[in-house]
């Protein structure tokens, strides 16, 4: 029952209003849960417990069912994404070139695990399966930037660059 690092949930009246509309629009349809979760993630960027409870209440299903669906599909995220999204490729080509070591280095640098977001909301880490740049393996993406032929010792510098842009130290 380990707790992950998650920044506190905040929402706006507009987001609440939007979610209510989505629920009302779908609630009579069979299999409404999946489309509602899709739209809820669009609205909030992720699916925290508060949003899942609202969905469960609105659709008359239990929270454990909502959570089951939300954790089944990898496209759903339970944690917010950072301002900078780091994505380490763990596809076959990258993996044999040591991508696991790259990921471990990123996790060490930011003090969070894959799937989590730093408390200041700046960075989130995910792993992905093949970005289609196998010739550059191992590959990591930060936002739209691609970093290829990486070695673990380069990670520190790359991330520091983004921290410097934000004008702070991590």
């Amino acid at each position, binding site marked *: *029952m380990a707790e992950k690092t998650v920044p506190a949930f905040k929402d706006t009246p507009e987001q609440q209003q939007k979610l209510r509309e989505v629920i009302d629009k779908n609630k009579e349809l069979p299999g409404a849960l999946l489309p509602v979760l899709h739209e809820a993630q669009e609205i909030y960027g992720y699916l925290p*417990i508060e949003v*899942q*409870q609202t969905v469960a209440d609105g659709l008359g*299903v*239990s*929270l*454990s*069912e*909502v*959570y*089951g669906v939300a*954790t*089944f599909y990898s496209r759903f995220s339970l944690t917010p994404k950072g301002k900078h999204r780091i994505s380490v490729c763990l596809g076959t080509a990258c993996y044999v070139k040591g991508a696991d070591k790259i990921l471990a280095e990123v996790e060490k640098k930011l003090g969070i695990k894959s799937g989590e977001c730093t408390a200041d909301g700046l960075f989130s880490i995910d792993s992905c399966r093949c970005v289609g740049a196998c010739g550059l393996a191992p590959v990591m993406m930060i936002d739209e930037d691609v970093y290829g032929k990486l070695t673990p010792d380069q990670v520190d510098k790359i991330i520091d660059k983004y921290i410097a842009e934000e004008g702070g130290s991590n």
Partner: protein
Amino acid sequence: METVHLKINNIPVEVPKGYTILQAAKEANIEIPTLCYLKDINCIGACRVCMVEAKNRRGLLAACVYPAEEGLEVFTNTPAVRKSRKTTLELLLSTHHKKCLSCVRSNNCELQRLAAEYGVDEDRFQSEKPIHEIDDLSPYIVRDNNKCIQCMRCVAACKEVQSVSVIGAIKRGFSVHVGSAFDKSLDDSPCVGCGQCVVSCPVGALTEKSQEDKVWDAIADPDKKVIFYTAPSIKATLGESFDLPIGTNVEGKMAAAIRRLGEDVTVFNMDFTADLTIIEEANELVERIKNGGTLPMFTSCCPGWVKFVEHYYPEFIPNLSTCKSPQAMFGAVLKGYYCEKNNLDPNKVFVVSVIPCTAKKFEVTRPQLRSEEAYDDVDVALTTRELARMIKRAGIQLTDLEDEDYDAPFNKATGGGAIFGATGGVLEAALRTAARTLDGDFKKIDFEEVRGPEAIRTVTYEVAGVKINVAVASGLANARKLLEKTKKGEADYQMVEIMACPGGCINGGGQPIRSDSVSNYVDYKALRSKALYDYDANAEYRCCEESPVIKMIYDEYFEAPGKEKAHKYLHTSYVERGKYYK
């Protein structure tokens, strides 16, 4: 009835249309193994252990979901079938923590039995075993997902039977596991504690939280006086743990066995506080009807049902009878009246209730059951299964014992108290007493209309010119239907009896676990209930107010139902709990 003809291993059978191959095979005296299928609860064709071959059908078929078709020729014991089942079992074992030696389900485990039948190599597939944290934070149920085979029976029992749905499948693929939303402990979830998940589990992934050791310690402690009492349904189910036929009444042997668990162990009859509940509850009902109190009045003896109302329907809390459950009343009577009368220190009296139920393990932790002097009314609530294990560990040959009586003064009780263990029983006992309160000449004893297997039963009785509408439901999904009807104003009941478990306490979450090769084919609930109704029919007293112990305790202590002392010791209050997490 429309039927279909098919052959099972060349044996012709005729079965009703709609039967599955699994059901049809049983007609030919062939049992096909199952792991995920559980009659009336789970039918998802997921575990693939029930695979069979059929002529002109490609591949193997899952017998639990494949319909028996006209002309189908099924083969249940071919080399391909045996190989498939064996491989399936070996794959299940590849991630299973095989701790059979220390598992409480050893010898009553469906996976273990099939593994032996199919001669599996338990280590054929070596793989990384996911390590799951054991959830033992709740006071009633322990989940060890390292033993889970993901049959989803518990999930179905929680959702379909109980409409509670606090557990589900989480994640996917190799990471999939069963648990509560956000991987919280069951203790933090709005679980009602009924334990239907435990009695549905084919393996040792779900068990009651065992408290046998605490009881052994108390028995060994020379400063403690240990008092047991056994709930109405235990006499009808304990025998199953000793290989007696389902529905064997072992009341006398049970009393004898408990007495032999240690020196100076006292054993009382909890049917007495079932009687006491009726006296208080019938009085409360008459008061509510006379004084315009909140109606319908709901029974409050089932702690799973009470917790369900507290979590999901708090607006109905005023409808719950304020009477404590028989378990809780007995604790209060023992640490109050009994200690006072016998000059005993309540802190040195160790009270053990034997109950059919995991929710009662939760109930004894309710702060309402703690006295002002900070002792618990009930120290330990033991399930039927735990009592059976204690008797076995003590080497007591239960089946060979001569019948003995319970200890005085709480030895005598009525048939009305005994039928508390079956759905409809509380209401029937209450009707017997309430009708006689309203009309001194009332004769009817058997209210057969409120018995039986239907999910929801409603009856109207007329007593002394008063019409009483009553309803009975067991299984919380059925209770939910009744509540919704009541909420919409579509029902006008005066008294409603709800038991969380389908069939009542005889099918409680703490009862002996029947393997699916029994529960899929035998109506064990009916057999267990019959034992209680037979007991009632032959009882010396049948109406709760006739019990000499009841007369004694009101004369000596409580004066009259609802009076000050009765109110202090025998009534309680409820809290709103919220339908999400703590």
